[in-house]
């Protein structure tokens, strides 16, 4: 790692005593830099993660429709998403940059590809777990194929789908901290900066803590959504 060329301590000469002495955690610094550094980073982070989860969910859903309807293509889709999941993210950036450049697109492609495995697998598992006798009763009662899917199979797969969404959301929020390797966005940025500065660590703790808090909040929101959408699960 290269040592930063400027002053070792940010705000050199004007910082609080905590900053000047490289304290482990400087609340003054947090207060001073909330508006210019931390809050923008948080919003960017939410944006990075939300785009990835939204697109990943849409792609996984389309793939799951195909994989559920045509059993033969399920294994290949599974293997491809497995494979994407195993590529180390830094390596994936290296591979992508020549094609998509130092852009948001590069980051999102990487983030989306990590959501696919979890989302797709949970959707397919959820759909296959619908009891055969329930599908039999639906068909025997005169549901069309589409009605059977939208009114019976999909709602019954919801708990599994939403569980997949929880895992994908938490992991995407965490993985999104590597975005600064490509573009200067998200909560990874203060962490990255602190790593290069070597001495001053407050940013790591604050930004890291915010990533964890964001993941917990997002997880909690999905749990609430799950409860609202699947009241029968707790019946």
């Amino acid at each position, binding site marked *: 790692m290269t040592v930063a060329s400027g002053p070792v301590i940010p705000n050199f000469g004007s910082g609080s005593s905590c900053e000047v002495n490289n304290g482990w955690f400087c609340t003054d610094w947090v207060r001073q830099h909330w508006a210019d550094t931390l809050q923008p980073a948080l919003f960017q982070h939410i944006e990075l993660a939300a785009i990835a989860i939204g697109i990943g969910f849409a792609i996984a859903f389309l793939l799951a429709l195909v994989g559920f309807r045509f059993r033969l293509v399920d294994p290949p889709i599974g293997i491809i998403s497995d494979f994407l999941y195993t590529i180390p993210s830094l390596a994936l950036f290296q591979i992508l940059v020549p094609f998509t450049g130092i852009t948001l697109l590069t980051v999102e492609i990487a983030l989306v590809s990590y959501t696919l495995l979890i989302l797709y697998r949970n959707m397919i598992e959820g759909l296959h777990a619908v009891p055969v006798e*329930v599908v039999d009763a639906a068909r*025997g009662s005169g*549901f069309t194929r589409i009605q059977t899917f939208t009114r019976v199979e999909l709602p019954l797969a919801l708990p599994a789908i939403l569980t997949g969404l929880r895992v994908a959301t938490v992991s995407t929020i965490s993985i999104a901290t590597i975005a600064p390797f490509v573009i200067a966005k998200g909560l990874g940025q203060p962490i990255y900066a602190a790593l290069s500065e070597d001495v001053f660590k407050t940013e790591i703790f604050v930004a890291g803590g915010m990533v964890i808090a964001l993941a917990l909040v997002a997880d909690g929101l999905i749990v609430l959504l799950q409860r609202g959408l699947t009241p029968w699960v707790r019946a």
Partner: protein
Amino acid sequence: MPGQAAELVFDEATKRYPGREGAAVDHLSLTVPAGEICVLVGPSGGGKTTALRLVNRLIELTSGDIRIDGTSVKAQNLVQLRRGIGYVIQQVGLFPHMTIEANIGTVPRLYGRPRSWIKTRSAELLELVGLDPSYAKRYPAQLSGGERQRVGLARALAGNPPLMLMDEPFGAIDPIVRTRLQDEFLRLQREVRKTVVFVTHDIDEAIKIGDRLAVIRTGGRLAQYDTPRAILEKPADDFVAEFIGPDRALKALSLHTLAELELGPPADGPTCGLEMTVRDALALLLEKKATVLAVTDEKGAVIGSITREELLA
């Protein structure tokens, strides 16, 4: 929505699966008169369920035909056909994510009935199958097995179908509840008078439930089609005789109740109701080591007597 009972005709109905030797259902021909219960009975794996599922085309015929009130099932739109046929299966298959009310309202909802209509209809049907109206807002997971099957029956009746298909509906229910459900189903049938095709491998259930029995042998071939009494008295061949069992004379006694017999004057002895079958009355005599039974009416008053000799006559 459909109405009363329909006549059902199997006409050389045949199902073969490619690559499998022999047919699953082999040239099955029989007519179920409107409003009667026809029980398909026979050994497990004999093609009874396949025959049943040919009717609502969950399985398609290979050859032959099945007609409901003269119209071939093949000539009808698949979805319309199924909406007009009540379907009850052993595992019930209630929709776990829907309330009991929504489950019962399945077919009316497919017909586009308004919410308020469905609510009223569900309440009626819950009462008809002997469940409290407070069940409407519960989920299937909150019900016992017997209660779930009652809801399954209510769901099948909700569209007022002229024909009901019932595939071992009481097969997974414990014996005590099972007997009660059979009795209630018969009471219900006297009220709604549907044409019913009922599959079971239990000969006692078949004799109790059926107006007619179709004994199906392995390979989906019809061995005998007649009333329970005729089959018990005159099994068509060794297969039927063996299937209904060596105690067929005893089983035949369960087709009659004491109400059908001439009673003697009131006497002392173990008491039994008029609605008791001759078979059960005989069993009671044996158990109590008695020679005469005191017969009571619904209120429990002794109105006559019957002796062992009279029961066996």
